[in-house]
């Protein structure tokens, strides 16, 4: 039986179309994916992302322990700051990609992917290095308020001065009288906030945000728009673009792998991989012929399969077909060309710089 977030009834009443995702019954769309996508790019959208999990590291060993499990360098992450990175296995395979919210050196919240809640907790608990590790996923709800008018809408509901919260920073505060962790983070490429609150408060918080956002044209959004928005930014999706068998270097995430920070899980394997050279790399591409690339389509070079598409769609903002694919290193440079096998037809593609979409200034 699929799980439901505390907002399930709110979604159904609002006319959302519900689908099962990662063991959760989640809204895939309300109005329509294109309308929701556009609302986030132009105005503001509200997402229920309570299916995401929260694992908390506490105690005197918390910082040190997480630093040994995380590929990015938490030594460069101040209290009140968030950092993106990966949890890796000894062999370098990605257990999950996560955001760490450092409340203090002895109190770090790890936001994990919905499908990986239990797997991550088991992994982290099994390699706790003396830290207290708690799976608090059921206790927390998460709402994402995203778009150029997000700050304006949220400011109506809080006395916290939002202009003082920089990108990837957070603070504790009240929103509509409810205690929240207010983080300037997101998965859309727009300015915005993710609000962590006690699960039972989620419906109240949702309603308060929808009311406060009415004049700004707020739009409730589903997972469909979340996916198209993240793909325009070339943000990776765990389970689609990477998994336990790919390393962050292959997934194009070397910017969150700090090989020189000291010993951490997967470091030696990735050091070796870096020296030996990669056999595949995740790149962004656009189609230069009609068609839409999809997960699982083969990448062809001179008619032979040499890689695979991991994500693809027709970009709502750009109108072009975009995707991410694993290709041999020889095809990874910007401007390289290959073909994508779309149901037996070879459609020409070109490697481009990512993100595909540049935020409006």
């Amino acid at each position: 039986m699929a799980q439901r977030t505390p907002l399930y009834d709110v979604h159904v009443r609002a006319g959302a179309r519900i689908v099962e995702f990662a063991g959760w019954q989640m809204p895939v769309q309300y109005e329509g994916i294109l309308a929701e996508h556009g609302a986030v790019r132009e105005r503001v959208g509200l997402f229920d992302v309570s299916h995401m999990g929260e694992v908390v590291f506490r105690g005197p060993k918390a910082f040190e322990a997480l630093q040994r499990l995380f590929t990015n360098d938490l030594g460069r992450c101040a209290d009140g700051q968030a950092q993106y990175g990966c949890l890796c296995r000894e062999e370098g395979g990605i257990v999950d990609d996560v955001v760490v919210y450092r409340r203090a050196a002895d109190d770090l919240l790890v936001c994990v992917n919905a499908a990986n809640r239990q797997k991550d907790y088991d992994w982290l608990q099994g390699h706790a290095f003396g830290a207290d590790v708690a799976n608090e996923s059921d206790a927390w709800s998460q709402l994402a308020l995203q778009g150029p008018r997000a700050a304006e809408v949220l400011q109506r509901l809080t006395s916290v001065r939002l202009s003082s919260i920089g990108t990837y920073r957070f603070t504790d505060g009240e929103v509509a009288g409810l205690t929240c962790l207010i983080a300037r983070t997101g998965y859309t490429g727009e300015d915005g906030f993710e609000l962590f609150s006690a699960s039972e408060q989620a419906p109240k918080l949702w309603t308060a945000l929808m009311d406060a956002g009415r004049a700004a044209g707020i739009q409730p959004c589903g997972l469909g728009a979340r996916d198209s928005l993240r793909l325009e930014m070339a943000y990776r999706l765990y389970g689609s673009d990477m998994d336990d068998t790919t390393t962050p270097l292959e997934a194009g995430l070397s910017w969150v792998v700090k090989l020189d920070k000291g010993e951490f899980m997967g470091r030696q394997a990735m050091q070796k991989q870096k020296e030996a050279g990669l056999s595949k790399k995740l790149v962004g591409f656009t189609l230069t012929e009609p068609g839409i690339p999809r997960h699982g389509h083969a990448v062809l070079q001179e008619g032979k399969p040499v890689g695979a598409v991991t994500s693809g769609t027709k970009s709502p903002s750009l109108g072009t077909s975009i995707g991410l694919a694993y290709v041999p290193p020889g095809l990874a440079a910007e401007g390289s060309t290959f073909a994508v096998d779309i149901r037996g037809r070879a459609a020409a593609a070109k490697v481009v710089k990512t993100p595909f979409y540049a935020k409006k200034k």
Partner: protein
Amino acid sequence: MTFPDDLKYTKEHEWCRIKGNRAVVGITDHAQNQLGDIVYVELPEVGDSVKKGESFGVVESTKAVSELFSPVSGKVVEVNDPLSDAPETINEDAYEEGWMIQVEFGDAKETDELMDAAAYKKFLEEETE
């Protein structure tokens, strides 16, 4: 949702409008609604053969790919080319402007096997139960 009485329907949610030995083919209001925003169509060319129950093209929404199945066997005599630049027409007007192909069919018996509007509505109710 509407299901015009002058059309015949398939279990794969295509409709066809029979005019003599020609069938105009599209997807139903239910199908376009289920797919959501349609952003791409791939249709056969004039002169191609299609076979009843077999795929003649695809429609794609932002998230999903869906095959199109021909209600009859025959030769494609017309294709609604403007759809390739304006696939959203299928969402907006599934039964008129959103038509996809016209097929000249040989065996009129094939059309007898298709559902009428009442039978299709009943089929939908059973399918969603």
